[in-house]
């Protein structure tokens, strides 16, 4: 029996010492070492512009920013990277966009605003077709998932869902022993090297003086992002990448097709809009234009008709609630050209603003 105990203990130690150690040190989602995030948020709250730390969980960052902000927020813009770079003039505009935002992230951000009693005058939502491929409780940025559930409960008075908003200490402890988390840790370690983690680089935040595109992406005090310089590609490069995606029949976030918009998820979206209107918040919806070559592909193949369906649904929603709908997925309607794009997905920031300013009068 003793032999058995000893071997169980030995195996447990062999397995778990590296797993726990690496999970704690590398900490890919910033569960245990929030210092980098805290440093970044502190620097931003003091009005600094910083280099975007590569390791930062965007959901956690939004949580930290919204919970600690003291700045006046009149307008909140949320959505995916299609809205994270728009150079609005308004000083009181806060950027709550997160990469590839799903419906759950829209809910998560509104949940955070509600939870921390921040009531902006206007909310702009950059609506992407992939957002409706997932239900409200499947935030892409899981750090905000519980706020999405919180918000949904608030809207629907759904007592079935728990109202917790943070990962509990037990859940964090569980994650420390998680093999999936270990795999992410190993991936990060391979990518950055052990020195990066040992010499404290992972904790450092670099403050910069200007908001011009540079080697690294930047974040402004209102959480607006500045693209890294190498993010700007030539038309030829963009066409090549777009063609590859078309050949693979695999378009960013939409996979190999979106044939219809999930009605339940859209109903949840509508409920969110109605809630904001009822709370005297002005709502605007923005449809970011797709790269012309990609949009042509949507038109040629029958696999992406959900994109057209969503634009129609959003415009009907606009009419129904008297909401301004800006932009259009169709680049030709907004006079958007290939050279207006930084890469095959994102317009150049100033062109994003032009695109946002387009309000089509469609019948």
């Amino acid at each position, binding site marked *: 029996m003793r032999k058995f105990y000893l071997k169980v203990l030995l195996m447990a130690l062999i397995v778990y010492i590296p797993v726990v150690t690496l999970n704690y040190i590398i900490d890919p989602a910033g569960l245990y070492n929030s210092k980098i995030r805290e440093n970044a948020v502190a620097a931003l709250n003091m009005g600094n512009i910083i280099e975007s730390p590569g390791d930062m969980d965007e959901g956690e960052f939004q949580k930290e920013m919204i919970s600690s902000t003291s700045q006046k927020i009149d307008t909140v813009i949320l959505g995916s990277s299609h809205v994270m770079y728009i150079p609005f003039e308004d000083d009181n505009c806060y950027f709550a966009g997160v990469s590839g935002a799903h419906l759950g992230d829209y809910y998560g951000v509104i949940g955070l605003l509600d939870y921390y009693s921040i009531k902006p005058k206007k909310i702009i939502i950059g609506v992407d077709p992939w957002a409706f491929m997932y239900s409200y409780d499947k935030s892409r940025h899981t750090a905000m998932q519980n706020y999405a559930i919180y918000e949904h409960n608030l809207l629907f008075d759904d007592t079935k869902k728990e109202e917790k908003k943070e990962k509990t200490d037990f859940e964090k402890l569980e994650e420390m022993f998680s093999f999936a988390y270990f795999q992410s840790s190993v991936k990060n370690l391979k990518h950055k090297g052990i020195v990066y983690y040992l010499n404290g680089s992972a904790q450092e935040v670099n403050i910069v003086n200007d908001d011009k595109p540079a080697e690294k992406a930047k974040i402004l005090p209102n959480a607006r992002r500045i693209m890294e310089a190498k993010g700007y590609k030539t038309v030829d490069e963009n066409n090549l990448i777009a063609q590859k995606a078309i050949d693979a029949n*695999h378009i960013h976030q939409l996979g*190999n097709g979106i044939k219809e918009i999930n009605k339940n998820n859209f109903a949840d979206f509508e409920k969110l809009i109605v809630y904001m209107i009822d709370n005297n918040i002005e709502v605007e919806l923005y449809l970011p234009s797709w790269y012309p070559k990609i949009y042509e592909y949507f038109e040629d193949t029958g696999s992406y008709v959900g994109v057209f369906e969503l634009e129609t649904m959003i415009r009907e929603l606009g009419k129904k609630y008297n909401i301004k709908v800006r932009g259009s997925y169709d680049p030709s309607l907004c006079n958007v050209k290939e050279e207006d794009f930084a890469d095959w997905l994102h317009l150049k920031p100033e062109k994003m603003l032009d695109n946002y300013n387009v309000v089509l009068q469609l019948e």
Partner: protein
Amino acid sequence: MEITSVSYILFVLLSVLVYWNIPFKYRWYILLLDSLIFYFVNAQAYTFLYIIISVASVYGATQYFESGRKNRKAVLILTLSINFIILVLLKYTNLFIGTVNYLCHENIETVSWYASLAISFYTLQIISYLLDCYWNVDYVEKNPLKLLLFTSFFPLMVSGPISQHAQLAPQLFEPSEFCYARIATGVRRIAWGIAKKVIVADRLAVVVAYLFKDPDTFSGVWVMIAAVLFVVELYFDFSGCMDIVIGVSECFGIALVENFKAPFLSRTVQEIWQRWHITLGLWLKSYVMYPLLKSQVLLNFGSACKKKLGKKAGKKVPVYAAMLVVWLLMGIWHGNSWKYVVGEGLWFWFVIVMEQILEPFSSKLRKVLHMGEDSKIWRMFQCGRTIILFSIGMIFFNSTDLPAAIYMLSKMFVISDCVTPFNLLINNVGTEFGGKSALWSMGIICALQVFVDVKTYRNESAQEILLHFPIAVRWLCYIGFVYLIILEGVFGKSSFIYFGF
């Protein structure tokens, strides 16, 4: 609580420690407690009532048999009815509603009743006990809690194997000594099962789902590739689950019956079903086929056939008729959809009957080709043919419904381009699949499985070979293997295919 999760491993470890440290007469209480905990963590609590009803009815019936009173047959029929009605109501009401809606153009709403965990498995298990007691080939359990443990023994509450009371009960209730070697065997088996599930099955699942989703693009030979890959996925999934279940039981000193025995080395479809989900096949043979063949109806039918068709055919036809019933039940058992009845039932019945009818022609062909029964080429041809026929049946299993399965099969006969779909597959599932390291680790596990299967086919133990290595090498293998699982496994994404049956 997924059985590949750390929480399940901890649960088992804790149970094993408690189990072997208390006097033997109390040990089965620990197993009962564990079984209840496992059940309530994994299923809707109220569904345990169905298990209680099954156990209570069977317990009552067996006590009645034991008392020697009359009307045994009526009590048997009543008890069988209770158990089958629960199973049918919970699992097949929606099939019935769906069929009525389709045939009568009605719009009756489907129901959302929860069946108890592993209901298809434990119902067969407890019915085998009931019938064995009725036929006086098993002893009657006096303690209802012991019968409850036999029915709900937690390793079995995932996907079987369907165990017989006469084989399992003595191990559950009779004293046994702590044996380190058995626990080590069990642990190795658990690790092996987890590797099969998280390294091979879960990764293949991504590819299979993609191929099955779009038969228009993946037509022609791709349909067959999809079907074979699904069979491989299912094998690694289900047999991996069985490895874990058998390994866990072994840690408690309980040997369960094997459910897989190198199925892909089978030479006929009949043989593959004797090596794949063995306990289900044995159950159907013992409790349906043999009683049917002995029934007056089939005996009379056999006599009539002999008179009309001659001695040889007259002998075969009743067997085929009994097989038809068995295979229909096999299909129905698999789930509440007609796709199972056709794919898992009728198709395999048809293939097996054809195999038997065409056997003389097959032998003649072999002789014409100057090949012996044990010729390697002939053997490979038979194995390949068997896997293809088996995979065709499994297309039904993995399709969303019967029309989808038929559509996919129809696409098999389309001449298709091979390169474009391949590029599509690589581009679309490459990242989710996990890249080269995932492919390598999958290759390692698959190669090891081939080795294990060959050993199993020869009735040898693959684990024995490991024990011949020096201890340092052995531990290096263990640690390497565990890290292979940790680094290359897919965690927390899907449950076992047969979980919840």
